[in-house]
């Protein structure tokens, strides 16, 4: 029974495949947003978890991806092509920005990454001609029935999430992942031992922008209306971090587990308390940081059984 722990993930895979056929539109909507956050949290984990760089740039990637995808579709580019082009644009953007801001460390990096989303929001707000400015952008709605749409976007988000997790697993076992962990422990020593810190950090930052960009583009088509305040909402940067911390930052399974638990709590518990929704979120953040900073998967009580999920570096 050494492989008994595989039952959980196997059941999850079966459920993910069966869901479009057994779930109603409400369940599909929740599952789609859950998968979106799996992609965001896993992506943040490349730079924030493995490399230990406190990046708050997820919202920037997500929002830029949403706008790139939305505008392309508005101009008549087919939907899937628009998503992919948005991914390429944002990754190129992230590589360029990353080269500049990854020279900073600690608080300075955190602020620089946080500000990117604000600058982009203001710029997009100002470019009224192309983006609709503060009025928002209407993305063309497809002429198929609602259930097919729900299934389509579920499948798209599932693909993005799976790719993000697979990238995470590959990165975890690769030379780059090992280098990123060295950077997390002590960047100066890593550099002196011959780790290409600058290159690895840029790769991790660029990788961490791909899936949020794709998720943003899919999101834009899914909700068919975006505005700057919503697309670049700072919560798109914060929630993935909370989720990764909740599950365990720097592990492959942590962000997935964290995203699942967080979204389930949001849906079941505090969505019912709208006026104190953000306050409760804040309370959970505070409790998490004070009592569970290492994440659930690394917690003492769970450790023996969950250990196989925490893939170690070679």
């Amino acid at each position: 029974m050494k492989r008994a722990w595989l039952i959980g993930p196997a059941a999850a895979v079966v459920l993910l495949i069966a869901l479009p056929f057994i779930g109603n539109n409400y369940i599909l909507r929740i599952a789609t947003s859950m998968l979106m956050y799996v992609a965001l949290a896993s992506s943040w984990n490349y730079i924030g978890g493995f490399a230990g760089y406190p990046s708050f740039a997820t919202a920037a990637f997500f929002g830029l991806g949403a706008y790139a995808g939305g505008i392309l579709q508005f101009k008549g580019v087919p939907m899937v092509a628009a998503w992919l082009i948005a991914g390429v644009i944002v990754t190129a953007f992230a590589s360029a920005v990353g080269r500049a801001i990854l020279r900073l460390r600690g608080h300075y990096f955190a602020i620089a990454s946080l500000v990117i989303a604000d600058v982009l929001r203001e710029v997009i707000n100002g470019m009224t001609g192309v983006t609709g400015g503060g009025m928002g952008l209407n993305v063309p709605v497809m002429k198929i029935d609602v259930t097919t749409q729900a299934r389509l976007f579920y499948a798209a988000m599932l693909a993005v999430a799976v790719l993000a997790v697979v990238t995470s697993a590959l990165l975890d076992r690769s030379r780059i992942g090992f280098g990123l962990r060295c950077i997390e422990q002590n960047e100066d020593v890593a550099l002196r031992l011959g780790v290409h810190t600058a290159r690895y950090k840029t790769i991790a930052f660029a990788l961490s922008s791909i899936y949020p960009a794709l998720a943003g583009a899919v999101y834009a088509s899914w909700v068919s209306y975006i505005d700057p305040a919503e697309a670049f909402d700072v919560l798109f940067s914060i929630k993935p971090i909370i989720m990764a911390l909740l599950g365990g930052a720097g592990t492959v399974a942590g962000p997935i587990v964290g995203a699942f638990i967080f979204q389930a709590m949001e849906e079941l518990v505090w969505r019912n308390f709208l006026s104190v929704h953000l306050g409760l979120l804040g309370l959970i953040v505070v409790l998490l940081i004070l009592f569970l900073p290492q994440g659930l998967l690394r917690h003492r009580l769970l450790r023996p059984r969950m250990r196989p999920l925490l893939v170690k570096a070679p």
Partner: protein
Amino acid sequence: MLYLQVLVNGVLLGGLYSCIAVGFSLVWGVLNIINILHGSLIILGAYAAYFAFTLLGINPFFFVPLAGLLLFLLGYGLQAGVINRVMGASVLITLTLTFGLNLILENAMILAFKADYRKVVLDPPLGLIEIGTAILPRDRLYAMVLALILVAALYVLLRTTRIGRAIVAVRMDRDAAALMGVNVERIYAVTFGIGAFMAGAAGSLMSVMFPISPLTSVTFLGKAFVICVLGGLGSIPGVMVGGIMLGILESFGALWLGPDYSTTIAFVLLLVLLMFRPTGIMGKRGFD
């Protein structure tokens, strides 16, 4: 002559900006924490002044020390009770913690005060002073003078008093300070309290000039960031220079590009500065 007026406006605004940023800079420098709560503490100070004015009829300019004191108590309690537990943890942990606390405070303020914009309207208005061709609104002038007095008082406090020296000592080397008999945890709490005091005082001054709402707290947090990076972290003269520079830049930016772009200018400037001169114009300490 238009340029002279814009320059004057910028300097008037910049004095207040220094007061907004000085507490943030102190907490960042001494505690090595980015205090996301700072914007909300400013707004809380502004609300305290607003209610003192509307309910009790106290002029916001006289309410400044009281608003500061209230916020000091809140800040001291927060640091002693909550934030001290994660001191020395990574940036991610401390930043996320203050973000969580900020969500709670912001939500509480929206529930208590609603999200409407409010403003203290002095009756009769204080009027204007004309010097040559430049026009100085009295309320802004008084706010700037008071703000700069507070910043200068903090400078003197850090230089000359026993507690001030202890704060500076903890900033230089917390372990050595502990060995010299400084109660580091208490100094952290006092420092955070002073940071909150300055935020409350700035908020009180601001309530006369700008409409306030819990939703505007992010704007002031952003300005505090920019000023700290502009002037350099951990020096009070640096904050004053940074604050006045930002005030002037925003005024001219609004003149040439339109008021919508003033935030963008500040943030772009921040990114550029972070890339090329992260220690700021007058900063002494390097990265992190």
